[in-house]
């Protein structure tokens, strides 16, 4: 007898980075892939640059708890390296992390960046993305989030067409050009993880 597995994704970042909107895209993509999914968010004063944190749970059976227990998440998507470290203990042993290298230093006592990277590199399953470099190459200032999502998509049971549809609908109001740019960033992220996993 096997119990239904409940999967968890943790999102971490800083207010204003789009953590919640990433979580919503993932929630909708999972739902459209025929899964049951719930999202939970903690964002007291999100515009004021504090830590923002969201979770998405999904399963093949209906769910009722939107919170993932420590040590039980499968995937961490972090828009900032220090925030990534905050949630490492949420991951199960073989969990994966996709993390932006770009720091947000809007606080006292941000540890030396090299220490942060070193700590992340020690974590098994960690994929660091140079989102700054990627944004430059794609000539799209906000490419980072979508690129991380593209990477993360490698670990999620969502068909390509569904990602494409959800992203397109999300940016529809902003015009075809913006949508295209975001799909491009998403695909670039997907490409990156192929390299990483391939090694």
């Amino acid at each position: 007898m096997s119990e239904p597995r409940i999967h968890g994704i943790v999102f971490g970042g800083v207010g204003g980075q789009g953590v919640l909107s990433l979580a919503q895209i993932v929630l909708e993509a999972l739902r459209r892939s025929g899964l049951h999914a719930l999202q939970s968010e903690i964002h007291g004063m999100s515009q004021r640059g504090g830590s923002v944190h969201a979770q998405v749970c999904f399963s093949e059976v209906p769910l009722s708890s939107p919170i993932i227990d420590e040590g039980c998440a499968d995937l961490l998507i972090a828009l900032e390296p220090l925030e990534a470290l905050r949630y490492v203990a949420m991951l199960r042993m073989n969990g994966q992390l996709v993390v932006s290298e770009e720091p947000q230093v809007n606080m006292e006592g941000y540890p030396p960046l090299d220490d942060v990277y070193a700590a992340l590199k020690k974590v098994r399953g960690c994929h660091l993305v140079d989102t700054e470099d990627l944004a430059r190459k794609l000539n799209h200032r906000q490419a980072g989030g979508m690129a991380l999502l593209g990477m993360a998509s490698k670990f999620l049971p969502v068909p390509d067409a569904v990602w494409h549809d959800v992203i397109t609908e999300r940016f529809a109001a902003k015009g075809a050009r913006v949508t295209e740019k975001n799909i491009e960033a998403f695909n670039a992220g997907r490409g990156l993880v192929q390299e990483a996993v391939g090694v």
Partner: protein
Amino acid sequence: MAQGTLALGVEAVGCAAFDAGIKGAFGYPGTPSTEGFEFVEAMIHAAPEGRVAQWAANEKVAYDLALGVSYAGHRTLVTMKHVGLNVAMDAYANSALTGVRGGLVLLVADDPGMHSSQNEQDSRRLAKFAWLPVLEPSTVQECYDFTWRAFELSESLQVPVMVRLVTRLAHCRAHLVRRDVLTPTGLGVAPRETIQDWVLIPSNARRRYVDLLAKQPRMVEALAPMNRLVAGSGRQGVAVAGMGRAYFEQLSLEHPELKAMPRLEVAAYPMDPGLEPAFLAQVDEVFVFEEDYPVLEERLTFQRAGKIHGRMDGSLPRTGELTPRLLKEALSLLTADGKPASSLDLPIRAPRFCDGCGHVDAYEAMQEALRNLGVPDARVFGDIGCYTLAAQEPMSAIHAVVEMGASISMAVGAAMAGQTPSVAVIGDSTFGHSGLPALLTAADSGVNVTVMILDNRVVGMTGQQPSQALDQVERMVLGMGIPAAQVQVLTPLPRQHEANVKAMETALQHPGPSVVVFRRECIQSIRRGVLKEHDQELKACAEQACCSTEARP
């Protein structure tokens, strides 16, 4: 046509209220309740058809507005957070005696764990205090379904019905199945023969209180289907309510053996007093999982049968949020071994003022003025809003924050006790919320109190909702009886710093009450163009001189 939508728990309540045919929605913003009102507001703006959605000056006003809609025979929703219900408590408790005509549903979002609140009080207790029903959903779909049920109950029992959410559910996003939308149909104003019911002079109130208590069995009966006893095997049972019910349900997916435990599932109060003895007869030991206060646990403990484990016996922590992990620990279920936490010291990334926020300039002017006047250990009374962030290091500019509006009254009290200078800091919206009566007292007191009103033209903290005091602050201050000579309006900008310091010094030195208004619009509100339309209208108005522009300072 019924349809699906993605929504937060609080949004599901707002959505259900719209679908159930409300005529009016009212609220005061407060995390985590805010989005509930915003959702219904957006729906109403898209299809008004005679409906209104309006933020009120405070929760009591919001509640009174809703009560008026109900009196006129229509369904209505009123939203607030738990501490806001304290502000509306007078109206809420008395509406239990008047009763309602059109269905009145009160959404209250509690914040156990205090993610963004001053305390973690449990609104179920306040419902009991008022002798009113409260429904406690545990999923987003239940938020929607229970709200529909709340309207039906409100009309059949003729009392207001509370729907109580907690942060985790309020901010849980899920797919929602909606019902067909009802168009608001009015029952007409409260009929003549019920007029006395609505007039709470003692003779009527005494009669209505007896009526309210006599209604309790009917409430129990109407709510009975929402609470149930699930038989099981073994002498260990669980009693679950709200998120405790949700967490337990999910835990038993992963641990099917839990499904065999006898269960008491609670979703509404007042509950059938026979339910607990029936449950306790089946078990010797009970784990109680509910969010916030030990409401259910106290009831079970009162019955004194078997061992009751929960917040009171230390099986769960006495304070803070309930979590799935706490359930696992209480039930001694093994938890998975995850990755080790980072050994690096991770400093907290606390929220802070937006770059260029005018509040910072106002505080700097105040602090420098206090230093210049040689006040070594100034104690400043703060209030609730973005400007509360100044309590943190390194600014440490305010030294007491208690509840909405307390800054002014506390400063007056302290001045009466001899503290000088005595400074209060309050935002424009908080001033409109409950600073007004306090300022009336300040004006009347004659003591040396300096009230700084930080006017950013919106409710900054909760997402730039309109401030009821918009463009009216000085007129209100003058109207409260502060002499014009003691009222200054300043612009909190770095280049005004010297002038602002001087002005603050003058105010602090004045032996009687004085008010300094620092006005600069919230950066976020400018960025989002929240007041653009309003300001354009005002400008056009002034140009055409089509109406009095006296309101303009």
